[in-house]
């Protein structure tokens, strides 16, 4: 079985994130649906990564949780603010995604939503603020720092990269791409680390050499934000 991440090639003919400069609730809802499909496709892979470090169910938990969330978000949610949708998504993930991932991702989205409250759509700057709040939420709830071999190791670099892109004046798509690239690098960088959080903590030296499943799913979520043609 291939351990490489499958390319999202043409299977979903989604409306790409348009050249419009704002992420609306509708865009986010589409994104959640895409995430659900991607997570299903990579479920076995994530489970395998988790089997080496934890209890082997991260893929299943994320696929089920995001699938439920995608189904629960309705078209009439599109009228909401982006931040509100993110917060609601967070609440659903806390309840619907099993394992530590549910709590952590749920916290991340809730904090992100709270950070961008009042804005109907998200521009690149808003995205940077949201990602930063998400990363900090995870750091606080999970009591983790960079290098602990967790979701944070992909999310923090992504948030920093998006903030830097905004500083350089890139547009939304450019900022997202920088974020995805950084998330990928962060994900790969978890391989040589010794786990200091979560179940993998008990493995000590044995956790080296295995990619963290949480950082992997985080990268998948980031990449799913990209317009189809650019993936």
């Amino acid at each position, binding site marked *: 079985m291939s351990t490489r991440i499958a390319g999202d090639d043409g299977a979903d003919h989604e409306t790409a994130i348009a050249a419009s400069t704002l992420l609306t609730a509708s865009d986010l809802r589409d994104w959640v649906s895409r995430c659900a499909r991607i997570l299903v496709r990579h479920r076995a892979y994530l489970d395998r990564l988790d089997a080496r470090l934890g*209890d082997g169910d991260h893929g299943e938990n994320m696929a089920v949780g995001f699938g439920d969330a995608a189904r629960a978000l309705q078209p009439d949610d599109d009228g909401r*603010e982006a*931040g*509100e949708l993110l*917060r609601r998504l967070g609440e659903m993930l806390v309840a619907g995604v099993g*394992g*530590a991932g549910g*709590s952590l991702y749920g*916290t991340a989205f809730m904090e992100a*939503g*709270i950070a961008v*409250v009042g804005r109907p759509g998200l521009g690149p700057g808003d995205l940077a603020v949201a990602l930063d709040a998400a990363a900090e939420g995870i750091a*606080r*709830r*999970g*009591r983790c720092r960079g290098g602990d071999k967790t979701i944070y190791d992909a999310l923090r670099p992504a948030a920093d990269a998006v903030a830097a892109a905004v500083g350089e004046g890139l547009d939304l798509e450019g900022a997202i791409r920088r974020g995805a690239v950084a998330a990928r690098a962060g994900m790969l960088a978890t391989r040589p680390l010794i786990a200091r959080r*979560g*179940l993998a*903590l*008990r493995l000590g030296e044995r956790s080296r050499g295995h990619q963290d499943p949480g950082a992997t799913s985080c990268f998948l979520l980031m990449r799913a934000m990209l317009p189809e043609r650019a993936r």
Partner: protein
Amino acid sequence: MTGSRPATPSPDAAPITAQERRRIFEDAQRQADTVFAQYQLSQLVALGGRLGEMATSVIGELVRVTDATAGAIWLGGQGEDALRLCATEPDALVYPDTVPVPDRFATAAVAEAWVRPSGWHGVTLEERREIGEPGPASRVVGFIALRPPEGASLPPDRVRLLALVRHELAIAFRAAQLRETLAREQALLAAILDGASDGIVAVDEARRVVRVNRAAWSLLGGRRHLAAADTCRELLGCGPAGGTEADGLRCGARCGFEAALDGPAGIVESEMRLVHPDGTEIPVAASFSAMAGREPGAVVVLRDLRAERAADELRASFLAAVSHELRTPLALIAGYVDSLLGLDLDAAAQRRSVERIGSAAIRLNGLVDELLDLTQLEQASMGLRRARVDVATLVAEVTRELAESPGMPAVHAAVPDDLPPVDVDAPRIGHVLTNLVDNARKYGGDGAVTITARRSRTTVVVTVSDSGPGIQEDERGLVFDRFYRGRAARESEARGSGLGLYVCRRLVEAHGGRIWVEPEPGRSAISFSIPHARHAPASARPRARQSR
């Protein structure tokens, strides 16, 4: 919460200030943090694993989650109240300031007393007993202590976290202890069972086989063809033997398991024959007994009777041979006495008769000597009286004695003078030589018997050869066994008990040497070796032969 449609405030309530809203929010965050921390601890202990590893990861997690500066966990041992230090965070070896905690607490109460003045926060891990079970209401499994930051105490929500998780931790650690105990007990049981020389088979109430030890598999003829055997009947190959199939698994009135399970307590003994797939039959003595304990079951101990039976057969044939040997000279004596008393013999005839009686008496004497030697050989201590002896001298003496015995063939000795001395019981080795010469006389044809000797690297080798047909190749290993008489011996007219070469072997081996038939075809010779005096083993007691 921010972002949702604000609830319509009741007309009397004061509006919530931003500050209060913030406080409510942070409270909620802390609660969620506590829940999450509890969840992570739960996940950690649910993975099980070895006790030591679990203790290390739990105390590490607790220290992190409570923002403590150090932590330690003590766990109870088996069957004692004392708690021993199991893990600390930080690891004392890594950090320069070792965590100054006691290695051991005699009881949880002592631990709690230590914690109070030390400023550490302590939590006792207890396992509750079921109501009605004998023993104290709860058992102390361990004790956890956490050191708050200097001058502070643990935050209340963290204290609450500890209270929430302590029962779960107690259960998890107890389970880990029980797992380790179980593994040890299982290993011990397996070692004991597999070390037993008798076969052991255990069945449960329904006659299903629950345990078979290694010796039993060997008696049963191997595991492979019995891999599917589920019940004792399939395993031991019992027939219905009086019972009916309709009775399910009951095998009939003569089944030892049935008697043990249903009858009064005690051991039921019987004999069985176990049949191997290749047709080999093994007689075994079976002792059946019910298993003590909570669940009913029965055990059978199977003792291989083959050695016992073989020994019995040998003994019987030995007695027969001995009786025969004794009877012959006795008959001779009786005959000559009769003729002396009943016939009117002249002086010469009388003299001859008396001489013959004398020879028969000598022969009887020799046999009794051999029997006595045999008895001694069977006992543990042979009591060799060793002295330094020159082989050439010994052989010369023996040769001289033999020359004086009637009926013995001519013996030529060709022994070099420069052989290294040996440490031997001279009369005993003399006896070996005599037996070998006697053997040569009986079965070695009419030619002369020669005794030679040579030195090897560590021994002196003495060889007795004759001009007879020798011992067949397939019998060369067997002739030194007790009561074994070779083909040639059996076919000849000579009478023997089969003991002569056996006695030689035991005596030679008691001196640390070996005895063998010379292998060259056409040659009829037996050799034995004795270690050089300085090579002799420190103690040359023969090992006691097992009685069965």
